[in-house]
């Protein structure tokens, strides 16, 4: 009965590969998000998305693209992975002021 679930939990891949991280929420929330937590533990918004609008943080490289097959899912696709993409990626969703986070995906690019 996990509210926001991400898969995989860990992902190790080589530079130049393309990978996806999946996120699903069963809360019926309207909006979903992707955050990046870097090695210094800073949390930064990457995307927010609801059925109508995608808002992209302008600092996010266009190698990153969110894909939402339906309201309950927001997957993160990353092309041409670079060493600097290594981080923990958190999915989140909200309804009103209730924000719920997934447990994170630790991406390591080697």
């Amino acid at each position: 009965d996990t509210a926001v679930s991400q898969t995989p939990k860990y992902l190790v891949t080589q530079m130049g590969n393309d990978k996806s991280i999946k996120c699903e929420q069963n809360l019926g929330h309207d909006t979903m998000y992707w955050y990046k937590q870097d090695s210094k533990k800073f949390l930064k918004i990457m995307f927010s998305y609801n059925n109508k609008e995608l808002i992209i943080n302008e600092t996010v490289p266009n190698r990153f693209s969110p894909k939402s097959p339906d309201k309950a899912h927001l997957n993160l696709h990353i092309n041409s992975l670079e060493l600097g993409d290594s981080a923990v990626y958190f999915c989140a969703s909200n309804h009103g002021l209730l924000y719920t986070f997934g447990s994170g995906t630790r991406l390591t690019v080697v």
Partner: protein
Amino acid sequence: AQSVAQPEDQVNVAEGNPLTVKCTYSVSGNPYLFWYVQYPNRGLQFLLKYITGDNLVKGSYGFEAEFNKSQTSFHLKKPSALVSDSALYFCAVLLTGANNLFFGTGTRLTVIP
């Protein structure tokens, strides 16, 4: 510019002592303020939020936070720290005109037995 700041990277406190984790904010309009905790290798867990009303907000695990408009602060407090409170704490604000939370840089709390 709108922002939230956590001036301390690290806070150490002895078990049983009161703890305070500091947060200051800069937003236009009325702020919506949050505290989250991140345990090792875990996601973010909601502790409490301030929207309006009573300046003292009580949350999970015995934590509370005091909203101080004149000092633009929202410090997290607990009367008696537990070793299990050791974690990374994030203050966050809902920026005016946005729908995502904007996080501070985090404060690592270590409770010493």
